[in-house]
């Protein structure tokens, strides 16, 4: 047991002070009928063996391919300073800043995070973080219901499927209703939220709508008609929840500009590695009138008794430890260290750098579009996109598998994440970012051509001469 300071003598000294012979006496209140006798787990590893075991598990993953998967989680360049700051154990071994006098580092960093996200989103109030984009979207939907005292929310079918499913889970408890807004089936707006359908759904006076959730860019990578969605929602007395991707907000209109009431999103692109699902960073921001409805921690600037600037968790009357069953949410501790990562990332990359990240990702994506189209995979939907789009590939699942054999993670098989959507059955969702190289794009194109040609020729083997583009492929 590597982390205890206690020697046998220390334990004896404590037992002697308590006047008992054995620590068993301290567990005497556990009824004998339910008393466990140890744990059915093997003995611990010495640290060097533990490290070897963990390194072997990490090596059993296959990474280092030429990667084109996004779907809400994006590979961006992360300056090493981000992780160096996260490794300051004054940050990572502190707890929720309940004692502000000795927590000003965490508190100021959260206040700065709130301010940075407020600038990016153009919103007034930013929560000090939520679990991830999905949970933040679910909390946004609940906020809309509380603020309007209505029980019906509409979510675009082009919002990330995990977010839609999470909203549905969160709605189960309150018996709140969630309906999907279908997508435009064809024409220049194919794949985007169907505004005519939205208007019809909003017009049903028997089921007044609390909120309308639309993502921009959508899960399918497309830019959505946010101005129109806001106009329609507001005309029906509903709030508009914009699901946003933070890097894109340096080049795309922010939710504050088009009149969204709530912005939710995934903060992972701001300096947080993919790490197979988390921890990530739920972004949740709102306009001033909704300030008392926003769940989660808020940090405010105030002064101490000597008039010095200081920061403190505030408006705590919304929270579970004060309000208990009447709280805005059960959320308490969530993702402060991830918020710190995002703030350090934004501060280091800077406003021009962040815009360069978004624009370079867009440029790489355009290059990818041309390459894949030439290889026989045209776009599935024609509308404008930023850095992610769907392409049509016959037998997409098999092609995706064949690409893996050639060192390419060729995006996401849409049929795997959106089963039961015939219009997506032949789709691969692919993305590029500033770290995507032209060589990787060319390798993807060549591999796709070869796989598709092989499919045509009825071959299954890999043609010779396809070099591994990114190295590290086993």
């Amino acid at each position, binding site marked *: 047991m590597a982390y205890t300071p206690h020697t046998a003598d220390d334990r004896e000294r404590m037992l002697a002070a308590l006047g008992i012979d054995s620590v068993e006496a301290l567990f005497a209140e556990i009824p004998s009928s339910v008393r466990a006798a140890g744990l059915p787990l093997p003995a611990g590893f010495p640290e060097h063996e533990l490290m070897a075991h963990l390194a072997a598990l990490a090596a059993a993953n296959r990474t280092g391919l030429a990667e084109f998967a996004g779907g809400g989680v994006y590979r961006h360049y992360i300056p090493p300073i981000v*992780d160096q700051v996260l490794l300051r154990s004054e940050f990572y071994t502190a707890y929720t800043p309940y004692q502000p006098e000795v927590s000003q580092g965490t508190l100021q960093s959260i206040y700065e995070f709130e301010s940075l996200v407020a600038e990016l989103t153009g919103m007034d109030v930013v929560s000090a973080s939520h679990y991830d984009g999905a949970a933040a979207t679910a909390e946004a939907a609940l906020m809309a219901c509380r603020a309007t005292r209505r029980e019906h929310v509409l979510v675009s079918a082009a919002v990330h499927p995990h977010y839609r499913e999470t909203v549905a889970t969160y709605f189960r408890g309150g018996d709140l209703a969630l309906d999907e807004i279908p997508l435009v089936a064809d024409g220049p707006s194919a794949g985007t939220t169907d505004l005519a359908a939205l208007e019809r759904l909003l017009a049903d006076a028997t089921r007044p709508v609390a909120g309308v959730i639309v993502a921009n860019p959508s899960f399918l990578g497309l*830019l959505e008609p946010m101005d129109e969605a806001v106009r329609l929602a507001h005309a029906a007395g509903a709030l508009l929840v914009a699901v946003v991707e933070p890097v894109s907000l340096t080049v795309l209109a*922010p939710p504050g500009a088009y009149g969204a009431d709530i912005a939710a999103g995934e903060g992972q692109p701001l300096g947080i590695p993919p790490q197979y*699902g988390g921890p990530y960073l739920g972004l949740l921001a709102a306009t001033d009138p909704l300030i008392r409805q926003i769940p989660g921690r808020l940090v405010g600037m105030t002064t101490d008794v000597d008039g010095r600037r200081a920061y403190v968790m505030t408006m705590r009357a919304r929270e579970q430890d004060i309000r208990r069953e009447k709280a805005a949410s059960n959320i308490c501790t969530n993702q402060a260290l991830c918020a710190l990562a995002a703030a350090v990332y934004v501060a280091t990359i800077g406003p021009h750098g962040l815009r360069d990240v978004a624009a370079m990702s867009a440029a790489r994506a355009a290059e990818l579009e041309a390459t894949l189209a030439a290889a026989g995979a045209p776009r599935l939907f024609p509308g404008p996109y930023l850095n992610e789009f769907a392409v049509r590939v016959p037998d997409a699942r098999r092609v995706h598998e064949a690409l893996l054999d050639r060192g390419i993670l060729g995006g996401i098989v849409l049929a795997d994440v959106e089963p039961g959507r015939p219009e997506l059955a032949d789709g691969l969702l692919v993305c590029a970012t500033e770290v995507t190289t032209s060589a990787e794009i060319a390798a993807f194109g060549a591999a796709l051509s070869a796989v598709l040609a092989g499919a045509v020729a009825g071959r299954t083997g890999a043609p010779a001469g396809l070099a591994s583009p990114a190295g590290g492929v086993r």
Partner: protein
Amino acid sequence: MSVPITPEAAAAAALLGPEPSGLSVPPGAGPALQPTLFELSRPGRGGGKVAHPPKDALDRIPAAARRVTPPALPEIDEPTVARHYVNLSRLNYSIDTGFYPLGSCTMKYNPKVNEWAARLPGFASLHPFAPDALAQGTLDLLWQLEEALAAISGMEAVTLQPAAGAQGELAGILMVRAYHRARGDLDRTEVVIPDNAHGTNPATASMAGFTTVSIPSAPDGGVDIEAFRSALGPRTAAIMITNPSTLGLFEKRVVELLEMVHAVGALAYMDGANLNAIMGHFRPGDAGFDVMHFNVHKTFGTPHGGGGPGAGPVGVRAALVPFLPSPRVLREADGTFRLEAPGERPSSIGRMRSFVGNTGVLIRAYAYIRAHGGPGLVQVSEDAVLAANYLKHRVAEAYEVPFERPCMHEFIASAAALKRDTGVRTLDVAKRLIDYGHHPPTIYFPHTVEEGMLIEPTETESVETLDAFADALIAIAREAHEAPGLVTSAPTTAPVRRLDEAAAARQPNLRWRPVAGAETPCPE
């Protein structure tokens, strides 16, 4: 040699016993307050980390979709960013700087090897939409972690998906709801919760659509069995109890309580916040609890991060397995692993969040469990309970300890008598501890104990540290009698003194705006 902070402090410091370690730091030598990132910004500084895109990169984006006014983000060079955050970090108290006895939070040492493990590129760079074939190492680890948590808790199966303890509670109570509905039992609308529960318990029950029934605790600190009996009935969906309780006491009548709950057809939820006390001594699943959550950032040493991220796995007994959140990690007959496909298990309550869980946190928890093994985890609990009882014994020299029974991993002390005699409140004692170099314990929780201090030392603090903390508390009690101003004006050695929290809530300043920011002077 101490440097006087105020004349009164100087006089008192000369008069009193052990010198608060904080007072030996000369004013001004401590970490200084920092300007905001926005005040550090100078046009043209910083950036240069990524290549410039071609000029036409955004030409294909329609003008109406573009941002018109760029965000007013700060422009700062990297050296200044580094200095800003390092200096901010120095304003924090943390486990790695000192004793952090926050009751109910289990602020134990966070092993460094776990930080190394989570950062291994094979783990950290794995995309969550990577096909199962690419993720076998992580899936293997997650599956083994589920097995280990099931072994520790005596539960049938575990989900790792919830992102935090509170989200685990929500998953657990939604499973309770689904269980009753699946049986056509639609009238169970109530969740029964003791009044000393964490606030998350009633907040969770509300979020899951239940009304809550609050039960007062018995004089011995345990649950009031008779009050529970009269609250239970055909409308009861579940009880939620914390065991050991938030008073640090094991629920002696737990067997009887669980029998009563099951007799009326309800389920029993155990808040696992206090699992650090009972590993290898009590397995909730064996005792009859139906569902519980784990706080890996408490029991299994993952960092608290200044307020997250954590993870909140949930264990369930067999009857609740069909309702577990999706996706589950499955082990195939050939020994490979895969994630459940969307819609594969229609009885599931659904997703709690995106992807499989807070994997980076779960890797740390797995490493912790593997480092200790079964015998090591039992020793963890025994050392935590021994340390808490020893500290309680010492603190009782100067404070009331309301319950005479042995405590588990934490105990509650009260400054009610001190307040009566001197006017010094628990809040003041807590703030004065800062001057002695210790983090305050949890105060005024549970609400059921007057002027309460919930103290949890954990197993990773030495006897010397426990003694130093007890000595400080005892010295503060003396100060309260002899120089109460010293206590009520504390802290005096922290980076800031007590805050105007009322003003912060009345006129919230929740984001930097140049005008609002200028109202309070920028620290130099």
